[in-house]
């Protein structure tokens, strides 16, 4: 399987049996998404075969679906303008005839209840009105639902990227039940704990090849990361000691009239923690707008923003990698209103080297990159500006361990040189890297943790105190 000059899959041999959960891990650009697209029929391999249930030969989306293959994609793929039940209708072609609405509604309600007991999603509302976590839940439920015959193989590509820990645990428990009943699941995730605890067998990919294919109990998180080819770094970060020096560069009064006020000082990495969707993104946007008018962009921007949802508000899909990278620094790159091409190219080459964007040519379209590499470009976009404050909205969603380590390193050096980072993350490992952490609950800041107090235990305690899980 090749894309242009890049070989995405090279001699991959993968067998998935009934009644087993196969975990698939690998770096960004290791070929995971490609193999998913080959299995579900969107891509036809240039060489080699795909066979469903033993019969090879035919290939295509409808053949794959007829063989009970369903896919939950990394980027959410529902129709946002339709209601939940209408989306069920689209995903299930055999839901024909009169009264399909009520049947679709019954189907999705039952399935949601089975996977995520206690959810409160209104199945009559349009997808637009749901939060990102709810959308993901609906998509997962639609894929697991079956009329007449149940699906045989479900491919879950980063299914928990927008779910909080509780929902993720519910999903993983359901995956085990589904497998026990004879279904198969191909689970792709960057959360190694999930892979290790849920899969029967783990396949590790690297550069378009399978490098390891062993039973799950033979792995632990250390050996898994080693197999992927990146080195585990257990060491803690040297947190910057000169904290709260001078006056805050960024501050915000308590949100919703209660809780703590927000402050950030020069050279700090401030983390925003808490369960997903508890007002962290809104806080970031408010911080951004407090320094940059909504109507009239400031000439010299003090803040840069790294978006989390790159297909929605990050990448310019039709532009080249270079153009995507340089868009925020055009002011510095141009003289008398004209862009200096040479300087732009130099900027591109510089960042390509610094963060290792995997592409033969910066002029290629941004969509030719894998998801993690696209995110790296967005990172570089913010870091390439002269802005002293960088706001990050869960930017590492779906980025592999190796890339993350590289980015952490860059963040640390940038912070030492005086930049301030405000970082919302749903991953505990990232929050632990911060100098100071604000924990959000129900839209307000409920706790501030500093230094060694930043532990999973403390953060969870703050996110859940008052005994009410949201």
């Amino acid at each position: 399987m090749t894309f242009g000059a890049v070989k995405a899959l090279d001699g991959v041999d993968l067998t998935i049996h009934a009644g087993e959960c196969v975990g698939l891990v690998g770096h960004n650009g290791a070929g995971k998404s490609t193999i998913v697209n080959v299995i579900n029929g969107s891509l036809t391999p240039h060489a080699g075969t795909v066979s469903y249930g033993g019969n090879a030969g035919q290939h295509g989306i409808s053949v794959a679906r007829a063989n009970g293959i369903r896919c939950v994609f990394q980027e959410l793929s529902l129709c946002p303008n339709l209601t939940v039940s209408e989306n069920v209708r689209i995903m299930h072609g055999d839901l024909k005839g009169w009264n399909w609405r009520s049947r679709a509604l019954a189907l999705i309600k039952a399935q949601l209840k089975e996977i995520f007991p206690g959810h409160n999603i209104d199945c009559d509302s349009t997808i637009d009105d749901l939060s990102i976590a709810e959308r993901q839940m609906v998509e997962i439920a639609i894929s697991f639902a079956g009329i007449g015959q149940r699906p045989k193989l479900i491919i879950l590509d980063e299914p928990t990227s927008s779910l909080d820990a509780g929902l993720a645990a519910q999903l993983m428990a359901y995956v085990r039940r589904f497998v026990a009943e004879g279904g198969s699941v191909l689970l792709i995730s960057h959360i190694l704990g999930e892979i290790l605890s849920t899969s029967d067998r783990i396949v590790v990919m690297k550069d378009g090849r399978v490098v390891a294919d062993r039973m799950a109990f033979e792995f632990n998180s250390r050996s898994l990361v080693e197999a992927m080819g990146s080195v585990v770094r257990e060491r803690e970060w040297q947190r910057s000691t000169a904290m709260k020096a001078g006056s805050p560069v960024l501050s915000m009064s308590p949100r919703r009239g209660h809780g703590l006020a927000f402050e950030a000082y020069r050279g700090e990495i401030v983390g925003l923690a808490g369960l997903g969707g508890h007002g962290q993104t809104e806080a970031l946007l408010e911080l951004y707008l407090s320094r940059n008018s909504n109507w009239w962009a400031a000439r010299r921007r003090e803040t840069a923003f790294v978006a989390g949802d790159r297909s929605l508000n990050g990448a310019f899909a039709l532009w080249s990698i270079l153009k995507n990278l340089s868009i925020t620094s055009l002011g510095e790159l141009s003289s008398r209103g004209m862009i200096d091409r040479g300087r732009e190219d130099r900027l591109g080459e510089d960042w390509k080297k610094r963060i290792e964007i995997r592409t033969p040519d910066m002029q290629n379209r941004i969509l030719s990159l894998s998801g993690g590499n696209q995110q790296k470009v967005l990172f570089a976009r913010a870091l390439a500006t002269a802005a002293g404050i960088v706001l990050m909205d869960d930017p590492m969603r779906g980025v592999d361990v190796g890339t993350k380590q590289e980015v952490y390193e860059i963040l640390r050096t940038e912070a030492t040189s005086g930049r301030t980072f405000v970082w919302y993350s749903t991953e505990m490992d990232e929050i632990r890297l911060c100098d100071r952490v604000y924990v959000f609950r129900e839209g307000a800041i409920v706790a501030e943790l500093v230094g060694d107090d930043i532990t999973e235990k403390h953060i969870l305690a703050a996110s859940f105190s008052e005994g009410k899980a949201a």
Partner: protein
Amino acid sequence: MKLSSGTLRLIIPAVSLALLLAAVFYMQPRAMSYTGLNLLFNLAVPIALATVAQMLIMAVNDLDLSMGTFVSFCACVTATFLQASPAMGVLIFLGAIAAYAAMGMIIHVRELPSIVVTLGMSFFWGGLAVLMLPSPGGEAPGWVRWLMTSKPPFVPMAIVASVVIAAVTHFLIMRSSFGVLIRGVGGNFRSVERAGWSVIRIRAATYALAALFAVLSGIALVGLTTSADANIALRYTLLSIAGVILGGGEFVGGRVSPIGAVIGALTLALAGSFLSFMRISPDWQIGAQGAILIVVLALRLFLNRLERREKIQ
């Protein structure tokens, strides 16, 4: 009570139509009669049909700039072929619908911008219309004339026709599986594709259906005017787009509302009469019509913002 975003989308067009109607009645109480209403809304029927056609195209994220010339072409066919030899007329219409379906396929397969393709096609339809009727003329077929001028008891034909159009298209677009697929293509065509549907077929069918409504629009127009002209409906391109937007539709994302589109068309037709009643000189009418459009759209933006704020809290 919690309103769904779909209902909220319908409130603004309905309220603006009611306000406009109230203003017209206030200025000209005699309009509040069977004949008065019929006269006010008569010309809205073809506009409503053209708006529905445009709405279908917009539901799959495209835009049809040939709507006006295509309706003019259909009007010319109605006044000539359909009147002289009905079989030939029907055949021409079927051919035109097939041409629309083919246009949809080409736009999809070649990933062409629909605006460019339909703009090109508008010259094609316009040319055909001029070839058929170089000077205004022709005659409406008897049954069309009868249908458009019939007087049902209690409610004038224009209102009955609008309600029927709204009901039929609502069922077709909002309730049926086919409608879901059309809007699904507008919302996220990749997910429709991944679910195993043929998007090219859906697009072709959507374009064909839109052509069917445009044909009906041309027939209805001739039924009212009794004769046709190659430039009879040129305004319909922009009127139909404005009608869809007024009715709560959006240019992209498959967010359309058939009932809203019909209401939007009625509002546009009424706005013209309203301005005449106000004794605004025709020189200013187009500008004033634009002002009405802007006011309604501003209201909608305001309401959307309120809705979003509510969602956050």
